[in-house]
């Protein structure tokens, strides 16, 4: 590949240099030619009216006045009438035309000239020319200079190509080595970025982002299988022992019936946990391409608050909607966002109760925040200490305070996954006192997978 580039480079340079050279030399000669032509115009203009001997006089006078011109005038028979050349140049024919010719000057030196000739009215022919020695000299010296330039350009080109190629190969080799290490299992490795900001760097950055995501997914998978081992096997074990106990119960049929009913309840709980886990895992992998629609965040919050009002009252709490405006547009997946809010409200009802009297009020609010919509659920409970907040968003994490309560520990991780899927974030903060969870979603657009 570099050889092709190099060849192209050399050929193009040679052509350019050649064209430059050709133009330069032609320019000089052309000037002489133009001057000769214009002078010929002058002389030939009146030719029909002036007899040949008068024209001869004109020419002699021009020669005497010491110009640059070379002249030769012959009559209709070819006999010299005037001119500062020895003879009609053999290179030129005795007719209208022109071109290069050589002549000998008085001191016997040969010179090069260019000239134009024209046949006049009475059959006489006049030649006007100019010496182009200077042009030729310039041309030949230029020729060597141009060759030298071409040589230098080629050498530099080859050198640059070799150096660049080696540098490129070096970086590509680094990428290859890193990839091998990654494939061998070291997911923490990243491709080095040289900092020059060129396309290879851009490629390396993209690959690194991809690697980070893969590492995260692999990590997630590992976590899931660990969690499954514990959190799904436990209910399964419970189911098994229920059935076994019922079979062994001496009461017989009534015990069987009870055992079956209990088993059915436990199986339903297990299915719920499993579905929740599956959903979270799929959301985190970005595999869910839910459809989004244009929603009113305020209406959504109203629905959730309305749904949970009675349940809250039954446990001595109040769920209220804290709404400032009439409508807040949001483009999102309604089912997922509703589920996220419901998870937060359920969490608040379970864990967000104030320990020592005080109003057990859970407030759900909507606010617009430059291009985003912030859906928040706030309680007056014990809150989550800053150190535990990040952990709380992970799957199956039950913080110390809540271990005694029933639940899967998937609530917050689902909220985080929904946020992520929409290109948004989750913030946990101190409600002073209590916990406030903010789900920040982009007001306008789509999700990752392009959902």
């Amino acid at each position: 590949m570099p050889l092709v580039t190099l060849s192209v480079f050399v050929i193009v340079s040679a052509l350019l240099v050649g064209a430059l050279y050709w133009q330069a030399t032609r320019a000089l000669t052309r000037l002489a030619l133009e001057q000769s032509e214009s002078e010929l115009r002058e002389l030939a203009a009146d030719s029909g009216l002036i007899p040949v001997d008068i024209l001869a006089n004109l020419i002699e006078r021009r020669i005497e006045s010491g110009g640059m011109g070379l002249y030769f005038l012959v009559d209709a028979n070819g006999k010299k009438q005037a001119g500062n050349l020895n003879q009609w140049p053999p290179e030129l024919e005795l007719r209208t035309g022109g071109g290069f010719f050589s002549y000998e000057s008085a001191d016997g030196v040969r010179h090069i000239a260019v000239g134009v000739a024209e046949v006049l009215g009475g059959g006489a022919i006049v030649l006007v020319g100019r010496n182009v020695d200077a042009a030729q000299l310039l041309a030949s010296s230029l020729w060597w200079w141009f060759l030298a330039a071409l040589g230098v350009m080629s050498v530099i080109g080859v050198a640059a190509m070799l150096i660049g190629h080696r540098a490129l190969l070096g970086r590509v080799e680094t990428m290859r080595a890193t990839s091998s290490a990654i494939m061998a299992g070291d997911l923490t490795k990243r491709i080095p970025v040289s900092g020059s900001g060129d396309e290879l760097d851009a490629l390396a950055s993209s690959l690194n982002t991809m690697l980070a995501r893969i590492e995260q997914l692999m990590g997630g998978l590992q976590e899931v299988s660990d969690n499954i081992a514990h959190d799904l096997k436990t209910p399964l074990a419970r189911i098994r022992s229920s059935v076994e106990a019922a079979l062994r119960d001496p009461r017989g049929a009534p015990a069987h019936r009870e055992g079956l009913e209990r088993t059915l309840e436990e199986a339903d709980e297990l299915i719920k946990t499993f579905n929740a886990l599956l959903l979270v895992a799929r959301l985190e992998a970005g595999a869910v391409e839910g459809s989004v629609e244009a929603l009113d965040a305020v209406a959504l919050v109203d629905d959730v608050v309305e749904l949970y009002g009675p349940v809250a009252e039954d446990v001595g709490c109040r769920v209220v909607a804290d709404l400032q405006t009439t409508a807040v547009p949001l483009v999102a997946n309604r089912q997922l966002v509703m589920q996220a809010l419901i998870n937060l409200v359920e969490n608040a009802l379970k864990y967000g109760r104030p320990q020592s009297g005080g109003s057990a009020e859970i407030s759900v609010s909507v606010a617009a925040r430059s291009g985003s919509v912030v859906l928040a659920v706030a309680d007056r409970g014990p809150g989550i200490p800053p150190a535990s907040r990040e952990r709380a968003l992970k799957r199956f994490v039950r913080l110390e305070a809540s271990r005694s309560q029933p639940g899967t520990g998937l609530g917050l991780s689902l909220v985080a996954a929904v946020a992520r899927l929409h290109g948004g974030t989750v913030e946990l903060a101190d409600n002073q006192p209590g916990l406030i969870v903010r789900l920040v979603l982009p007001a306008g657009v789509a999700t990752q997978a392009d959902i």
Partner: protein
Amino acid sequence: MRVLVIEDDLDVAAFLVKGLGEAGHAVDLASDGAVGEERALSGGYDVMIVDRMLPRKDGLSIITSLRASGDKTPVLILSALGAVDDRVKGLRAGGDDYLTKPFAFAELLARVDALARRRAPEESDTRYVVGDLVLDRLARRVTRGKEVLSLQPREFRLLEYLMKHAGQVVTRTMLLEGVWDYHFDPQTNVIDVHISRLRAKIDKDFDVQLLHTVRGAGYVIRDGDA
């Protein structure tokens, strides 16, 4: 009612046929997609239950060709695929309801009944009447006997849904979907609490109870004895 079940899993199929039969329905079973499609297109069923994953022809294609032939028989789609989008896909293909496996039989039965007795839009009433309970949809007013009952908006919508399906069992999931347009399982018994509030308003001070709980299934509103 005549029900067509297209399901290749033998255990699930047996379960469905037995359960539906005991509930008083006449059930035909097809165990693969090609036979299922043939039966479906031949018509004469009040409702169909179609599994998505079938050998020879998948459930959604069957529904698509059914709809293309102009057949409007209600279809309940059964599937282990329960992601948010799978439901949307199923309904877009022409399905009328979507149930994920594993499911409770009571849930399936309630939904099948609701589908079969679905009334055409031009027949929908402006008033629902059950016994002496009258719900006026236009005036947003509920009366029982001579008394005007004062209901919260959520209680009204709940009652409206129940009365629209008067005499049929309505499950908690159906209520969540029909009244709040929510398709997941909440952890808490939200619906039960709403129902007990509603009951307190429409049944407590009256002699005849209209809103009944069906154990293991859901709720039903009907006149006459429980």
